[in-house]
């Protein structure tokens, strides 16, 4: 019998392009805050689930080990979860398994990233995600896959770059209200279109920044959660789905694997009409078009998200508030921490703690992350 799982605490560091702390210190700050948030101590935690991107970014091999000490995982089960860019939400999904299985009552879920260690830049390391035999010899960079996917998506629904640029305007604007955000800003569609083209159709301002940061959440079983807090946020559904690495064999216009992961989570949560039943959406937005691309799949309606964007429905005060946090585009993109930040945002929104970002009467939310070679989907549905 599956146990009910609640989020009872959350904490995060500032997201910045360069944080002077070590990854260990960042993990400690996030973990300490998440425990202070719910009045627990490290000794109250039964197990720790951690997540972080490939080791080459921090420059520590086997870097899961750096999370052990500052998360208080001494003498406890500790694991590092990795599903590419999907890790941040994947680590929440794995944290859910720990409690839902009945094996653990209180679990600390933590994700961090230190993207500022590679010098001069992390970007050349991203090349190594491509197949070494048939893709790397072409001299790729990471933005290729996004540009290819974006172009296909634009073709499928006849979307303009002007419309897609509104995602950056919205999310950077929302991030102005996020106390830990790196890139909150008031910008215009013009600004996005006039920023340098890197790999057309992708301009610089279509892309989230590279960032350092850490986020931690505390999960508890139903019995424990009721003792710990009056405002638990329940994880009502989780979903995870991967497509194959042979990404040139599928239509990039629609991430069907995201749809499948969302359907798993909705089924578990008893959601039949996401458009009607969900109050807050936090789709993964490392690039502008990705928010729409993923929202299409979360809604199960290819091409709907751009229409809602055009109508202004995705604004925080619209009918379908999307990335009220400010998303990766505004808050920042410390890979795994960015995904978990979205789950933290659901916790803050649904427990009424989102401050200036608060979406009124938010009861149900969905967070999603995505990664690898356009093939990973991780989804969490929460309810207050």
């Amino acid at each position, binding site marked *: 019998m599956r146990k009910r799982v609640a989020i009872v605490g959350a904490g995060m*560091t*500032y997201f*910045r*392009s*360069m*944080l*002077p*702390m070590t990854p260990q*210190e960042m993990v400690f*700050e996030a973990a*300490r*805050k998440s425990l202070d948030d719910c009045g627990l101590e490290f000794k109250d935690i039964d197990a720790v689930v951690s997540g972080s991107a490939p080791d*080459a970014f921090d*420059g520590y091999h086997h870097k899961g080990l750096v999370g052990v000490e500052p998360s208080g995982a001494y003498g406890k089960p500790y694991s590092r979860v990795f599903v590419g860019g999907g890790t941040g939400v994947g680590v929440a999904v794995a944290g859910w398994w720990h409690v839902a299985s009945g094996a653990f009552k209180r679990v600390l879920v933590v994700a961090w990233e230190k993207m500022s260690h590679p*010098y*001069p*830049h992390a*970007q*050349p390391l991203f*090349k190594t995600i491509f*197949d*070494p*035999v*048939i*893709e790397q*010899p*072409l*001299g*790729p*960079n990471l*933005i*290729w896959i996004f*540009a*290819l*996917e*974006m*172009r*296909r998506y634009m*073709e499928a629904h006849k979307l303009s770059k002007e419309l897609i640029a509104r995602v950056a305007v919205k999310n950077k604007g929302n991030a102005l209200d996020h106390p830990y955000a790196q890139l909150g800003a008031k910008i215009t569609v013009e600004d996005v279109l006039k920023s*340098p*083209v*890197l*790999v*057309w*159709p*992708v301009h610089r301002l279509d892309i989230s920044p590279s960032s350092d940061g850490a986020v931690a959440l505390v999960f508890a079983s139903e019995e424990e959660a009721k003792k710990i807090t009056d405002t638990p946020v329940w994880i009502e559904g989780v979903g995870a789905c991967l*497509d*194959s690495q*042979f990404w*040139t*064999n*599928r*239509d*990039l216009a*629609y991430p*069907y*694997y995201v749809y*499948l992961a969302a359907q798993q989570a909705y089924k578990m949560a008893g959601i039949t009409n996401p458009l009607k039943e969900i109050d807050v959406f936090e789709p993964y937005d490392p690039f502008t078009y990705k928010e729409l691309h993923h929202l299409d799949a979360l809604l199960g309606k290819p091409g709907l998200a751009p229409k809602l964007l055009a109508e202004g429905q995705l604004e925080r005060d619209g009918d379908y508030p999307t990335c009220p946090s400010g998303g990766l585009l505004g808050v920042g993109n410390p890979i795994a921490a960015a995904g978990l930040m979205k789950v933290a945002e659901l916790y803050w929104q649904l427990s009424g703690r989102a401050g200036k970002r608060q979406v009124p009467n938010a009861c149900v939310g969905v967070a999603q992350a995505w990664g690898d070679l356009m093939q990973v989907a991780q989804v969490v549905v929460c309810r207050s």
Partner: protein
Amino acid sequence: MTRATPSRFSPNYLQQLPEDLAKYIQRHGLDKELGRLEGWASSTEKRYTEVEEWQIDNLILTYWHIACMYRHSAGAAFSRFLEGLKNGKILGTRCENCGRVLIPPRIFCEWCFKDVDKWVEHPGTGIISTYSLSYIGTDPRVRFEKPVIVAVIWFDGTVKAVNSSRTVLHAAGMLHKVYGVDPEKVHVGMRVKPVWRKPEERVGSILDIEYFAPVEGGA
């Protein structure tokens, strides 16, 4: 105000170290000026932590270099594929169960979870499924005057729309570059064909196809 100080292996410093260690450090370029001192110094001026006790007066920066070379085995399917490229042929496999043509080839069908051992040859003509114009190289600081056209090519006769639980479409397809067309004129659906290197220049690499070019008279 916080200082940022590099712990830099200057030539003088290296003289004190054991010879093999000093040589290693030099060979890896760690005796050079590295780093973003100003960036780090300014990073400590913004709020970086909410832990009150955490004051940094002098941020020390240390440096290292990681360099690993890898020799990847191409495996059963890609070895045969690369051998085919060397001979000017695009080879794929076909799953007899679901009928899909698999390019890049594999010796298993991940839909049917069955072995695949039937090999097929494809002339390499197809359409551009999607494309982008890359103004930067693998190193993002390298900026091109004229963009490189990068595309996914779907091969003729292999596109199969399905409503399975796995995906909505399968196509045998490949990532490559496109030349011989103005970046302004390239479009989704454009017909292209492979342009091969001369037989004596081919080595069994994806680069044995020099690029894809528009098919004359094609739309």
